[in-house]
């Protein structure tokens, strides 16, 4: 999952630095992720993982770091399996 998220982030995140230079727990907004780019990342993740972010997870916190994105995606997949 980490690899896929990094690939999507690199493709649509519009970051000024290569994703390989960003640590899993680094602040993506500080690294240059704009509000609009975070929306693009969200849409790309939904398509790639075939999931839908519930409104409650559509916020800055969910996209604050690569680790945060991983945890959010894992949470959505888990709740879908539970349902």
């Amino acid at each position, binding site marked *: 999952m980490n690899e896929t998220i990094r690939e999507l982030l690199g493709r649509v995140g519009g970051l000024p630095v290569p994703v390989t230079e960003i640590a899993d727990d680094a602040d993506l907004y500080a690294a240059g992720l704009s509000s*609009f780019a975070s929306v693009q990342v969200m849409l790309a993740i939904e398509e790639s993982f075939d999931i839908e972010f519930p409104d409650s997870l559509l916020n*800055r*916190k969910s996209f604050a770091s690569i680790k945060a994105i991983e945890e959010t995606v894992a949470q959505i997949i888990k709740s879908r399996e539970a349902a």
Partner: protein
Amino acid sequence: MDMQTSFLDRLFDAGLLIDTGVDGLYGRSGQFEEVIAAFERLIDKVGGADGAEAMRFPPGMNRAFFEQSGYMKSFPQLAGTVHSFCGSELDHMSLLKCMEVGEEDWTKDQQATDIVLTPAACYPLYPTVARRGKISAKGALYDLQSYCFRHEPSKDPARQQLFRMREYVCMGTEQHVTDFRQSWMDRGVEMMKAVGLDVTIDVANDPFFGRAGKMMVNNQRDQNLKFELLIPITSTSNPTACMSFNYHQDSFGTKWGLNLEDGSVAHTACVGFGLERIALALFHTHGLDVNEWPENVRATLWG
């Protein structure tokens, strides 16, 4: 809805607003305009000493700047573009025939011009300032007013499609522009009190489009980027935003290349007055005849 319709009907009956047959597109009477003029003088009195540079743009803006602004990313549903007939004499004949028959949409061959309707008074400002070069270390302040267009037909007289927005826009450091925004939040409350209006201030968001917009909304609210000054007009439970206080962080600075003398990207903030909404709040609160308004309100506006 009933209450909204009835206030709109009362405004029509009193002649303050003039029905054009299109929801949200109204004429204004002399008295309505006099209230707006008086409130604008009050704005001048409160903000004048700040020494803002005044600029007035027509209600249309350069389409290239509009495209660069990213407005279509966030609010495609609200935008209005200007299209014109650009055809030959033969095209003109078929256009007239099409209009006469009325079966087909005669506007389908109209072509986009270089003009887009201004969505907010400050939109033409950023590229204008960017062309001038670096911004003084002391920051910069601008005073704008324009008719603005938003495609949202409604029977709520406080939601018009063509309305006037008066704005102050501040550019500078984060501290400078957030101080500017806070000072206008305080001033706004005082001004509305002085004209007898009951206000609250609350965190707010712009009407971003679609599901992606939901995330923009959450981001905007989480970061307290937008506040609105709310006044009951057509509903007490859902009061109307009559002023907004927006902190754009460095997003416009980055987008338009607005830099301070030290080379850092300028932060920007703007404060907007919805002039028709303020006039409507005054008419709703104090009655449709300005001669009957409380003496202290009249003194503040016309004293």
